[in-house]
């Protein structure tokens, strides 16, 4: 038996969601459904009604189950790179950004400091990749700095991006750098919204600073951490433009990611259907990982 109150609440709830839902229905739903539908077709990308061929699961077979041995291998290597980038980005970004957010919160007159941390977010246009190439080059700043400091073992002779084993490190450095300011702002807002009285109560109870941090601050930051993880995970799995400009997937395919494969197939080889199949396969994976991280964090909180 549904109560009248529940019906009223439901109507009200949906009224509040209405603008968002209408917007999604008008400019989101079609492209999502059409794109999923496309993944079961052979289509070059122009005039769907006239030229698309239904191919069932062939597209998925092609790169997931060895339909093309090479493309299957490349896809999973790319996916592995996505996972590595996502994992290490999150691994480094969260503690660094959290630390910086603490610093800024506890510093008086932190205006200038905030602007400095904010800079990478603003400067995230394409031009920044030129800066990275110069930094990582064989005679770039990084190598010269290591030499000058006597840390010869850290010098990568061909430059960080010129060695298949280290190129991914260069990519991760750029994603960490680009991820810090946004994450910091999120944590900063999270920290600022924590009720001061909680700390005061903890202090009265005689809890140590570390204990307060672990038992009060961190649990309250967990919801925002989930958002950050999903956000960074998504960026890592959809990465295209920065890899394309930074390494082109090289050397020797060492930094290929699914995004570069999707682009090549969709817009260079005119296999749009195949490319969407790749994109949605990754969607399923990231959705699973996101739900998993939500579950992990939630059960811990309770």
């Amino acid at each position, binding site marked *: 038996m549904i109560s009248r109150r*529940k019906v009223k*609440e*439901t*109507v*009200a*709830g949906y009224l*509040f969601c209405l*603008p*968002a839902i209408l*917007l*999604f229905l*008008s*400019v*989101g739903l*079609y*492209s*999502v459904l*059409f794109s999923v539908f*496309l*993944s079961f077709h052979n289509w070059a990308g122009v005039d769907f009604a006239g030229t698309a061929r239904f191919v069932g699961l062939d597209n998925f077979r092609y790169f997931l189950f060895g339909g093309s041995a090479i493309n299957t291998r490349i896809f999973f290597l790319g996916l592995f790179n996505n996972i590595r980038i996502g994992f290490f980005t999150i691994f480094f970004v969260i503690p660094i950004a959290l630390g910086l957010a603490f610093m800024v919160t506890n510093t008086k007159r932190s*205006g200038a400091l905030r*602007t*400095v*941390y*904010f*800079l*990478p*977010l*603003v*400067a995230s*246009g394409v*031009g920044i990749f*030129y*800066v990275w190439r*110069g930094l990582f*080059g064989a005679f770039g700043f990084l190598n010269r700095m290591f030499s000058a400091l006597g840390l010869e073992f850290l010098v990568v002779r061909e430059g960080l991006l010129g060695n298949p084993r280290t190129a991914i490190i260069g990519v991760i450095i750029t994603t960490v*750098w680009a991820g810090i*300011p946004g994450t910091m*702002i*999120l944590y*900063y*807002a999270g920290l*600022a*919204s924590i*009720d*001061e009285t909680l700390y005061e109560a903890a202090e009265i109870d005689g809890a140590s600073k570390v204990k307060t941090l672990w038992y009060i601050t961190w649990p309250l930051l967990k*919801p925002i951490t989930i*958002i950050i993880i*999903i*956000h960074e995970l*998504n960026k890592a799995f*959809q990465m*295209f433009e920065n890899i394309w400009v930074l390494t082109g997937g090289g050397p020797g395919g060492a930094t290929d990611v699914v995004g570069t494969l*999707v682009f090549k197939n*969709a817009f260079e080889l005119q296999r749009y259907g195949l490319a969407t199949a*790749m*994109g*949605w396969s990754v*969607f399923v994976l990231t959705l699973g990982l*996101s739900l998993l991280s939500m579950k992990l964090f939630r059960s811990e909180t309770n």
Partner: protein
Amino acid sequence: MCLYPFVWMIGTSLKTSMEALNSPATIWPRDGFQFGTYAEVWARLDFSRYFVNSMTISVTVVLGVIAVYSMMGFALAHIDFAGKKFVFVGFIALILVPGLTVQIPLYLNMVALGLADTLLGLVLPVINGGGPFAVFLFRNYFKSLSHELFDSARIDGCKLIGIYARIYMPLALPVIGTIAVFNFVSSWNGIQWPLIILRTRRWYTLPLGIMYLDQSAFSRWNVLMAGAMFSVVPVIIIFMLLQKSYMRGLVAGAIKG
């Protein structure tokens, strides 16, 4: 580490194009400061027009995202309605939609609506794209504010819209500021989507205007970097101007929360 690339951009913009291409590793120009590049860029860049376009687009996106998704976040946090969980998870899943593969379908969608080459056609998908993330943040934030606030206001006979607009939104300044920063910067720097949806140059933004400054046979990084400064500096100024009131909002939010 944060400053470094930025200092480098300034340094490169002051080099000759040869030095910029030849020795990207150095920061300060060897061959003297070439302020002429800035003059060249300024003379060829229709700054005021592109700036107004950029501002219009970014501000519209920010206002749209905040207006539409704060309401939804509020509903998901405090109103107990059927199917809430499904709506929430469904929207979060939208964050993960593979952007590159929906590009062409999305474009066709906008054409069908008659919105190709319009500001609305440019802006609506960007708002929709920023939505899930904003909903996520708003919902969490509103949830972290006590529900008692909500209950007592209801008992006082406040309408839901009133509770949302008068009680919860003023408390939400920290999260509004965060979302504003994210969406402002990403739409300010956006290049791909504007180029696909626009047929004429009427709504070209600063980054797009800068991209077409340089018509030489190879990359003149000094020109591109000088151009980039014209795009980056306004955002920094806006951030510095706004951060004071943003900070005040943060503190106020903390106290009231």
